C-alpha cells in the first residue's frame, strides 16, 4: 500500500508547477496511470482525497486516464494491446511479445489552474 506516498508526490508536483505559474490554485490534476505502474486506482483515489485535504489545494480533483498495457508485436510489426494482464502476447496474432511499450506510465500530464 504505497498509494498515499504516490498521492503526496502528485500534490508536490502540482504545488511546484503552480508556484512556477504565479501560484494559481490547482483545480484539477490530470494523471496518466498505466496498467503496469503497480498503483491501484481505487487506493490512489482515496489516498489522494485524504492527502489533498491537507495540501495547498484542498478542493483539487484528480482525473485519471488509465493506460492499458501495450506491447510491440514483431509478427504484426505493430503496437498491440496485451492479450491480458497475465499474458504478454499479442492480442491479434497470439505470438509472444515481451516488449512493453505502454502501460508503465505514472505521470502528471496536465493541470487545470484557476485564472
Amino acid at each position: 500500500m504505497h498509494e498515499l506516498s504516490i498521492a503526496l508526490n502528485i500534490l508536490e508536483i502540482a504545488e511546484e508547477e503552480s508556484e512556477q505559474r504565479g501560484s494559481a490554485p490547482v483545480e484539477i490534476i490530470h494523471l496518466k496511470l498505466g496498467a503496469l505502474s503497480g498503483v491501484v486506482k481505487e487506493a490512489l483515489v482515496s489516498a489522494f482525497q485524504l492527502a489533498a485535504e491537507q495540501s495547498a489545494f484542498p478542493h483539487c480533483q484528480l482525473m485519471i486516464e488509465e493506460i492499458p498495457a501495450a506491447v510491440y508485436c514483431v509478427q504484426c510489426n505493430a503496437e498491440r494491446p496485451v492479450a491480458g494482464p497475465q499474458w504478454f502476447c499479442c492480442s491479434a496474432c497470439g505470438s509472444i511479445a515481451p516488449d512493453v511499450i505502454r502501460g508503465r506510465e505514472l505521470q502528471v500530464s496536465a493541470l487545470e489552474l484557476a485564472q
Partner: protein
Amino acid sequence: MTSTPRIVEVRQNVLKRNDEIARALRQRFQDAGLFVVSLVSSPGAGKTAFLEKTLTLLKQQYRPAALVGDLATDNDAARLARSQAPVKQITTGTLCHLEAAMVERALEGWNLSDLDFLFIENVGNLVCPASYDLGEELRLVLLSVTEGEDKPLKYPTIFNSADVAIITKIDLADAVEFDRDAAYRNIEAVRPGMRIFEASAKTGTGLESWLRFLMTATRDT
C-alpha cells in the same frame, strides 16, 4: 464573471525524484565498478537465506556487501552478517518498499570502490517495490515452491519488472507437489524469455549455476 480554468501541460513523472536518485546511484555504481542486484519476493520466500548463501560463496573470491530492508527488526542483517560480508539494515518503519533515497543514505560511509557486488534485499512484498527503481543492474524475483505455482499470475507487474526469477526451496518441491511445468509456464506468460533458476539455500542445489550466470552478467555490463 466566471473564469474558465487554464490548462497547462506538465508531463512530470510522479516518481521523478526517486528516478533521479536512482539514475545518480546507477552512475556511481558504474563508476565504482560495482554490480548491483536487488531481490524482491513475498515475505518468507527465502530471500535472506538465498542471499546469505550467495554472499558466503562470493566472499571466497570477491568483495560482496548487502543492504536489507524490513519494516522493523534487524534480524535479517544479523543473519546476513554471518557471511562476514558488510551488511546494513534499512528499517523502513511503516513503508512497504525501499526507495532510492534510502539506499543512498544507507551507503553513506561505505567506499563503493572497495566492493565488487552489492545486493539490496527489498521488503517482503510483491506489490509496491515494482514501482521503485533503486539503481540496480539486475532485479531478482524469488518464488518459493511452497507458495504455489500461480504467484506470477497473481502478481504479474512485479514479475514483469524483474530480470531473473529464482525458484527457491527447491529441496521441498516433491513434498509440496510443486508443479514445475505450471510455474515455468506462468513465469513465461507474464515475462516472456525470463531467465529462471531453481535453488535451495539449504542443500546448495542450483547456487553454482546462479553464480555462473551472475559472473556472465557482470562481464556483459
